[in-house]
């Protein structure tokens, strides 16, 4: 058995021991409906053409690839290439998934979308697609995250979405997901839950992955054009895991390409304040899927912590749990400090302000470049840009003049 070289493909419900549907019976019919609608759409040239046209004329695909030699001087002089999902309309990879699901919403005859959001990127993308396609839109966001990401709250409201600040629990992404599920149980006849990552009940992990694969498909071709070969490693940050699975997937059969996910280690994995689910988590059921999660000995979900609201999630998508269990992908923890150091380095060496999520991947790439040396080629998913994080970064680096108003 050589599972690590080539794990079998899965379209769910299970990825090895992980995945499934651990949801109230009331949602099963809706999940079946999405599954059927997606199977049909993905074989329908009209859906594919419509999505491709939106990618080309609205999102700005294909996203470009940027080599960053000045940054790479700090990473063992490896060749580092950034897949620029930050240049997408709305500022992150999230739009890839959202447009696919929004078109699906119309095909199912539903008129409203709801979504959860942590940092706000998925919420902004969903509100954008809803405006574009004429759908009603409600976004659930933890109250703590609405404070951390006030700019994105304003963006969503400008786009016509209702933003609900969730006061329950840790007031972060996990609680926003709970609240969105509650809404969905009561509104499922008219409403599609536009889930933002590769977690949740089947078919979301496979559906969102398929819609994000475009990142890896483009990147695989671009790396070969630029370097004449496949990369030695592909690095991406992992919260729920959608950008990572999107860029990893087209490389899964290339056994020589290492796949490396960077998890948010917050204050450190030896403290109670982190979000390193694969490094420190245990098998359990959260938000509709059996995967790895941070939990106490009674199975109560532990609160996660990261400076990045987008990675502050105590669960992870089931396919990542499987890639970790099979050994095909490696997952490494990156602390807040390490991520912010990489954040600043990219700003100052290349003139690119990354999302703090993506800075975790950049930190991983620095370490990996030092390990692999100057002949190596490292592909990094720059999953989002840092507009939304300028406030956080300004406070972290103490850049605001005394008496300056908050950004």
């Amino acid at each position, binding site marked *: 058995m050589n599972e690590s070289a080539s794990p079998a493909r899965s379209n769910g419900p299970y990825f090895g021991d992980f995945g499934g549907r651990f949801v109230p019976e009331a949602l099963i019919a809706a999940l079946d409906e999405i599954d059927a609608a997606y199977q049909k759409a993905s074989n329908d040239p009209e859906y594919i053409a419509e999505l491709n046209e939106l990618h080309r004329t609205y999102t700005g695909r294909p996203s470009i690839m940027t080599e960053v030699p000045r940054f790479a001087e700090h990473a063992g002089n490896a060749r580092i290439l950034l897949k620029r999902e930050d240049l997408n309309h709305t500022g992150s990879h999230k739009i890839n998934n959202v447009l696919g699901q929004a078109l699906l919403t119309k095909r199912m005859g539903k008129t409203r979308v709801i979504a959860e959001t942590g940092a706000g990127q998925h919420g902004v993308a969903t509100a954008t697609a809803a405006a574009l396609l004429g759908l009603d839109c409600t976004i659930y966001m933890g109250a703590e995250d609405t404070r951390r990401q006030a700019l994105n709250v304003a963006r969503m409201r400008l786009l016509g979405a209702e933003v609900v600040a969730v006061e329950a629990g840790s007031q972060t992404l996990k609680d926003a997901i*709970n609240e969105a599920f*509650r809404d969905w149980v009561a509104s499922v006849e008219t409403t599609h839950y536009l889930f933002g990552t590769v977690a949740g009940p089947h078919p979301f992990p496979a559906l969102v992955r398929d819609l994000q694969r475009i990142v890896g498909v483009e990147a695989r071709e671009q790396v070969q054009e630029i370097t004449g070969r496949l990369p030695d490693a592909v690095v991406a940050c992992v919260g729920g895991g959608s950008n990572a699975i999107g860029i990893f997937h087209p490389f899964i059969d290339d056994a020589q390409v290492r796949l490396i996910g960077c998890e948010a280690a917050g204050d450190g994995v030896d403290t109670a304040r982190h979000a390193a689910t694969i490094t420190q988590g245990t098998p359990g059921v959260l938000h509709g899927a059996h995967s790895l999660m941070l939990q106490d000995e009674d199975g109560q979900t532990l609160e996660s912590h990261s400076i990045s609201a987008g990675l502050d999630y105590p669960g992870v998508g089931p396919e990542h749990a499987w890639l970790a269990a099979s050994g095909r992908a490696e997952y490494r923890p990156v602390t807040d400090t390490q991520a912010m150091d990489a954040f600043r380095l990219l700003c100052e060496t290349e003139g690119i302000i990354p999302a703090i999520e993506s800075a975790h991947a950049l930190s991983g790439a620095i370490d990996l470049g030092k390990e692999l040396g100057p002949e190596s080629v490292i592909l990094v998913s720059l999953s989002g840009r840092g507009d939304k994080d300028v406030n956080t970064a300004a406070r972290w680096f103490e850049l605001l003049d005394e008496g300056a108003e908050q950004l």
Partner: protein
Amino acid sequence: MSAVRSTADVLDAVRADGRPAALVGYLPVGFPDVDTSIKAAKEIVAAGVDIVELGLPYSDPGMDGVVIQHAAEVALAGGVRTRDVLRAVEEVSATGAGVVVMSYYNPVLRYGVNAFSRDLASAGGAGMITPDLIPDEADDWIAASDQYGLDRIFLVAPSSTRERLAMTAAASRGFVYAASTMGVTGTRTAVGEHARRLVDDTRAAGAANVCVGLGVSNPAQAAEVGEYADGVIVGSALIRALDADGVGAAGKLAGELAGSLAVAKKPVGK
């Protein structure tokens, strides 16, 4: 210790009594604290509740509305543990009421499905209601509940297809929990119009007993549901009474609910 009564036995006894439907009361263990919650559960039994659902507080109760979610948060903040729930089962089942645990799947999975089933049976529990575990995913629980003779109570919803109603009825033991509306727990002004049809369809799909939950909060609603269901499940309203005015208030509401059920019309054909 009294012999464990399966919920089907309790429902049979209610029918033998000439009452149209059983009263099923839900209270989360640990709200406002473990001892008070046990006292409240005994109080509602004394007031006429036939089956007690003891809730295992969970950090992510996606099927519950604000009242139960808040109660779970209070209970967890107070330090309630899974083993406290088993102690509550033991004390409440000693009253002779049927006692089931209502739990999301993860705490049970973490405890060990087999170990939890063993300890639940040993504490005198009749079985478990699993709001986020469908029969499709329940192989371990089905095996363990067979081994320890526990009721397994799955949910059906207005959106369930006929195939799923049949599959769920076949997998359940004790009763099937019919979620009366598409929504989460909590009081409503009206019980869903779908409830009666869902009960009929679930029976037609092979269920021996069907109890209705979600949205039943007052004696009039209980009487109405009692006309067609084998049991009427009340949760949030009892918790609100307990929260506002203590154990006595929960008992008083349970008594009024039981009273309304005692005089409800007998269901045709039952």
